[in-house]
C-alpha cells in the first residue's frame, strides 16, 4: 500500500529529473538559433567550430569539476591553477627548455597543485571551499611572483597549434580533446566502480566510510585530476593567446561551476551526469559567442554567467516548493 502511494508521488519527480538534460538541450538549440539569426555566418561548418574555440578551455575543465562536485568537494582555485601552469610553462621555455618538456612541466604543476588542495582538504578536514579560496590567491600569486606584469611572448609556433589548430579539416584540436575527455569522463562516472564510488561518497560520506570505501583517496584522486585538467586548460589558453601571462583565466572557476550546476550537478554532491554538463558547456559557450558578436564586454558577460548561476541554484528550491504545493493540493482534495 505505501509503496503504491510512493510510486504515484515519485513519478513526476523522476520524469522531471529525466527531462532536465532534455530541457537544457532545448535551451541549447534555442541559443543556437538565436546565434544563427545574429550571425548567419555560423551556418558554415568551420565557423560553427570556430565559435567553440574561445570556450573549450573552460568546457574541458567542467568535466573533472563535475566529478569533484558530485563527490562532495569543490575547487575554486582552478582558474588560478590554469594561470600558474601557463606561466610556469612560459618561464621554463624562456629558461631554455624544449617546449614539449615545458608543457609536461606545466601539466605536472597543475597536478601537484590539485593534489596539494586534496591533501589539505582530506587530511585536515577543512571545508574544500575555504581551502581552495586561500589557494586561489596563493596560486594566482605564484604567477605574479614569477612574471610580475610581464609576459612570455615568443612561444614557438608549433605550440600555438595546440590551442588554435585544426585536426583534419575543420575540427579544432581543442574541441577534439574536449570530446575525447567527455567520453572518457562519461564512461568513468557512469560505468565504472570508481564512478559508482563517487556517487556513494558524494551522497553519504559516512555510509561510504562505514562500508569500507576509501573516501579520502577518492577525493584526493579527483582533486589531482581536476588540477591536472586545470593545468591543461591553462596550457591550451596560453597556446591560443600565444603568450604566457599571470592574469589569464580570471573568473573561469565561476564559469565552470555555473556550467556544472546548469548541467544538473547538485552543488552538495551526489547527483549529476556528464551528458548534462556537456550540453550545458556547449550552451554557455554559444551564449558567450552570441554576446561577443554583439560586442558585449567581458565584465558584462559575467553578469549573464552570474545570473545563470543563480537561476540554476534556485531551480531545486523552486521545484521543491512546486512539488510541495502540488502535494498540498492533492492532500487537500
Amino acid at each position, binding site marked *: 500500500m505505501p509503496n503504491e502511494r510512493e510510486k504515484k508521488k515519485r513519478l513526476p519527480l523522476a520524469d522531471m529529473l529525466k527531462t532536465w538534460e532534455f530541457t537544457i538541450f532545448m535551451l541549447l538549440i534555442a541559443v543556437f538559433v538565436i546565434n544563427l539569426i545574429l550571425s548567419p555566418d555560423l551556418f558554415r561548418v568551420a565557423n560553427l567550430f570556430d565559435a567553440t574555440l574561445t570556450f573549450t578551455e573552460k568546457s574541458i575543465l567542467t568535466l573533472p569539476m563535475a566529478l569533484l562536485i558530485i563527490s562532495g568537494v569543490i575547487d*575554486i582555485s582552478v582558474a588560478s591553477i590554469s594561470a600558474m601552469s601557463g606561466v610556469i610553462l612560459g618561464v621554463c621555455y624562456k629558461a631554455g627548455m624544449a617546449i614539449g618538456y615545458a608543457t609536461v612541466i606545466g601539466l605536472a604543476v597543475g597536478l601537484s597543485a590539485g593534489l596539494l588542495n586534496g591533501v*589539505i582538504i582530506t587530511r*585536515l*578536514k*577543512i*571545508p574544500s*571551499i*575555504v*581551502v581552495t*579560496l*586561500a*589557494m*586561489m*590567491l*596563493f*596560486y*594566482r*600569486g*605564484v604567477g*605574479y*611572483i614569477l612574471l*610580475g*606584469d610581464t609576459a612570455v611572448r615568443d612561444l614557438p609556433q608549433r605550440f600555438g597549434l595546440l590551442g588554435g589548430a585544426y585536426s583534419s579539416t575543420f575540427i579544432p584540436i581543442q574541441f577534439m580533446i574536449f570530446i575525447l575527455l567527455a567520453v572518457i569522463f562519461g564512461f568513468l562516472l557512469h560505468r565504472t566502480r570508481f564512478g559508482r564510488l563517487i556517487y556513494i561518497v558524494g551522497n553519504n560520506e559516512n555510509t561510504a566510510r562505514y562500508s569500507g570505501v576509501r573516501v579520502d583517496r577518492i577525493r584526493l584522486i579527483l582533486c589531482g585530476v581536476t588540477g591536472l585538467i586545470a593545468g591543461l586548460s591553462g596550457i591550451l589558453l596560453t597556446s591560443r593567446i600565444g603568450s604566457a601571462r599571470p592574469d589569464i583565466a580570471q*573568473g573561469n572557476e*565561476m564559469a565552470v*561551476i*555555473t556550467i556544472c*550546476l546548469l548541467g544538473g550537478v547538485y*552543488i*552538495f554532491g551526489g547527483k549529476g551526469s556528464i551528458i548534462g554538463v556537456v550540453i550545458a558547456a556547449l550552451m554557455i559557450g554559444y551564449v558567450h559567442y552570441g554576446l561577443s558578436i554583439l560586442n558585449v*564586454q567581458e*565584465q*558584462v*558577460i*559575467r*553578469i549573464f*554567467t*552570474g*545570473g545563470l*548561476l*543563480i537561476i540554476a*541554484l*534556485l531551480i531545486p*528550491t523552486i521545484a521543491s516548493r512546486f512539488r510541495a504545493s502540488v502535494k498540498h493540493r492533492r492532500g487537500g482534495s
Partner: protein
Amino acid sequence: MNSRSYKSRLRELVRRREFGIFIIIVIVMVLVGLRNPIFFTGDNWKDMLMYASILAFISIGQMMTIVTGGIDLSVGSVVALSGMSVGIIMRDNPALPPVVLILLGTVFGLGCGIINGLLIGKGKVHPLITTLATMSIYRGLVVVVSRSRWVVYGDITKGFKLIARGNILGINNLMFAALIIAVVSYYFLNHTRKGREIYAYGDHQEAAKFVGINSTRINILVYALSGMLAGFGGVLWVSRVHTAQANTALGYEMQTIASCVIGGVSIFGGVGSVFGVLLGTLLFGIILNSLELIGIVDFWKLSVQGFIILVAVIFDAVLSHRVAEQMRKQRRVFDAE
C-alpha cells in the same frame, strides 16, 4: 580569594585567542621596526590605520555572515559598485552635500546585501555560491553604470575628499567611523536578542529552530548588514583614494575573510568576536604594510594573503580538533585503580 580570582582571570585572558594575536602583532611590529624605522613614524601609522579602518568595519560585516555559517564574497564588488555609483552622482551633481552621498552609497550597499540575503534566506541557495555569483554581477554592473568612464581625481569635489581626510574630535574620520561601527556592532552582537540569535543560529541550526529562531530573517539580516557596511565602505574608499574604477577593491573580499579568520572567527560558524576581528584586521594591515616597508614587491601580495588565510585556517582546524579531543577526555574521568 580576591587575588586568586585575579590570577584565574589572567590565566583566562592568556588562554584567549585575542591575546595570542596581540602577541603576534607586537612581535611583527618589533621585527619590522628593526628592519625599517619608517614603520614607527606617525605618517606610516596614519596611512596604515586609514587603510585598516575601512577593512575593519567591512570585516565586521563579513564576520556576521561567517558566524551564521555562511560567507559574503560580494563585498569587494559592492565596495566598487557603491563607490562608482556615488562617484558618478557626485560628478553629475557636484553641489550635493557629502552626507547625502554617504547615505546613498550605504543604501546601495544595503540593496545589494538584501538581494544576497533573499537569495540565501528565501531561495535556500548556498551562501558561497550565491555571493560568488553576485560578486560577478555587481562587478559587471560597475562597468555598466559607468559606461566604462571611470571616476578620476578631477571629478572628486573638495567636500568629498574631506570625508576621508577630516577629523572628528581629533580622530581621523575613517578611524572614527570604524570605531563607532565596532562599538555599535559589539553592542548589537553581544547585548541584544537578535545578536545572540545570530550566534545561536550559527552554532546549531536545528536547535535554533527548536527555540523559534527564524532562519530566513537571520540570513537576510546578516547579508543586508554586510552589504550595507560594504556600501558605506565604498564611499569612504573613493574619498580616500580619489578614483573609482572597474577594478576598485578587486579581491577585497579575501582581505576581509583573512581578517576574520586571523581574528578567530570560526569558518564552521557560531564563533567570532568584534574585538578579535579588529585585532585580525590590525595584524593583517600591519603585515601588508610591512611587506612594502621590507621591500617585498607588490606581486607577492596575493600569495602572501592566500598563505596567511591558509595558515590561519589550518591553525584554527588543528586547534579546534585538539580542544574537542581534550573535551572528550575530560567528559568522563576514570580513576586509576
